[in-house]
């Protein structure tokens, strides 16, 4: 049979713009080449011409579902270079915001990349409904539902408002009650299990060789999480587990994300209990001293780094972003080789790929 070329994308019903050039032999994929760059914005280059504060909203934009991690990752090297010691309360507030973002991002991923791509409309509604509660909390804390630009060098912009603690605990109680329903309707649903089990299997050795990160790596059985391996902020003081799964298929990647929501709830409960009193920010100058620094932050889509070189001015000399989505994309051509064309959305969705984050 002759080989047929097929373009999947650049427009998808779920994620942003990204094309997958697929060569098919009948119903089977012979070769798949991801074609990225449709949403490239030149964030790294623009960052060189703006001062460090003005960069914050732009650096957060590439991943609107999970922007507090990008924000922290960009701020951390600047704080290292400036030698600013961030107050503990600020670190706790950042942790609370980041974990709320992780839950919201995983629910978003399960709704769009899991639900829509597998034709599961109820999961789409469930995911977005529960995420709404977290967006309300974000709104209360930062004043914005998404893209908060909340962390600034030296601390955070606002303190926890009155009544936030109670509302957060209420939301976590609700989520804990509602997660089994999500499990029943989506992850344990035999229709979805049939669809995702043993589809897109990424073995442990392959996952390590391809250099995937985050839930994709943990879904293949590698226990790797920056929050435990190289703790930043206050994560070394928090007690939580890293969920892993041995199977390495699409279902196990979603299972890992689902368990991570549970662990984030555990972290949030500890953080809101242990948060100390004190200032939320330290005065820091709007300039980067000479030198270079790198951050390692575990976002919802895996490890992200910002490598920043300062030259003593208020603008960074170089900002290099390294995001989880880009690293996880390397697994896509490998996973798509030899599978049914109908499995493509399931595999693509299970990577929870965010094109804008990868294109930057």
């Amino acid at each position, binding site marked *: 049979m002759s080989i047929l070329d097929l373009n999947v994308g650049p427009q998808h019903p779920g994620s942003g713009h990204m094309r997958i050039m697929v060569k098919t032999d009948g119903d089977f994929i012979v070769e798949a080449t991801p074609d990225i760059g449709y949403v490239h914005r030149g964030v790294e280059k623009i960052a060189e011409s703006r001062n460090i504060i*003005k960069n914050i909203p732009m650096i957060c934009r590439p991943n609107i579902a999970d922007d507090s991690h990008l924000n922290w990752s960009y701020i951390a090297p600047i704080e290292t270079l400036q030698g600013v010691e961030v107050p503990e309360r600020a670190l706790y507030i950042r942790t609370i915001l980041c974990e709320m973002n992780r839950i919201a991002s995983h629910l978003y991923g399960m709704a769009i990349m899991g639900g829509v791509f597998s034709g599961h409309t109820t999961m789409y509604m469930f995911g977005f409904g529960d995420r*709404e509660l977290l967006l309300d909390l974000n709104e209360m804390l*930062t004043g914005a539902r998404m893209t908060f630009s909340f962390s*600034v060098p030296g601390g955070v912009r606002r*303190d926890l408002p009155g009544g936030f*603690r109670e509302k957060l605990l209420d939301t976590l109680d609700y989520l804990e009650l509602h997660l089994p329903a999500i499990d*029943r309707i989506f992850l344990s649903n035999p*229709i979805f299990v049939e669809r995702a089990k043993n589809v897109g299997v990424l073995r442990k050795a392959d996952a390590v060789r391809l250099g995937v990160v985050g839930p994709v790596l943990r879904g293949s059985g590698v226990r790797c999480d920056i929050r435990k391996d190289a703790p930043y902020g206050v994560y070394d003081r928090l007690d939580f587990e890293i969920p892993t799964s041995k199977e390495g298929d699409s279902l196990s990647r979603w299972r890992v994300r689902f368990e991570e929501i549970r662990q984030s709830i555990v972290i949030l409960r500890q953080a809101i209990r242990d948060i100390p009193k004190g200032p939320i920010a330290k005065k820091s100058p709007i300039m980067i001293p000479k030198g270079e620094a790198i951050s390692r932050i575990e976002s919802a889509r895996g490890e992200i780094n910002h490598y920043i070189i300062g030259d003593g001015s208020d603008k960074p000399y170089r900002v290099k972003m390294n995001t989880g989505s880009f690293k996880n994309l390397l697994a896509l051509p490998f996973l798509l080789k030899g599978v049914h064309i109908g499995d493509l959305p399931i595999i693509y969705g299970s990577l929870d790929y965010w094109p804008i984050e990868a294109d930057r």
Partner: protein
Amino acid sequence: MSAAAAFWEGVKHMFKKRFTIKHPYQEHELPDGYRGRHLLRMDRCIGCGICAWICPEKTITMVPAANQKTYQQNPKNRFPQYWYVRCCFCHFCTDYCPTGALDYTKDYDLAEYEKELIIWSPERLSRVPEGHRGYQTEFHGRAGVSHVLPTRED
């Protein structure tokens, strides 16, 4: 776990509380400190232009006030004018305002039919929206100039 359990879960949720609201008829209740459009207090603005300098999107231009009043504290007669097409509502301008002349409001419905209408003059910015409570920046504190802030949860 059978498919029936999944189906039953969906059926149960038909009788639960809805998350959605009928937006134009029902208002989404916004918390204090929501980052909507700006409120300018012209009697506090000294026309320093820090807001225009810190703005990442170049939303703000410093313009003279159109009304005939004179402001003692603002001898050069320079006030911020917002072009809301560009604004990303990061509110760094509010945080960095040294005199607290800028403030948050809960006004977010800024769409207009004419492109000239989306440029907000200083006078228009100084209109206090309906239901605006107190001084939002004092409630939440500002980073930036007054960077070191006390705990404000109690």
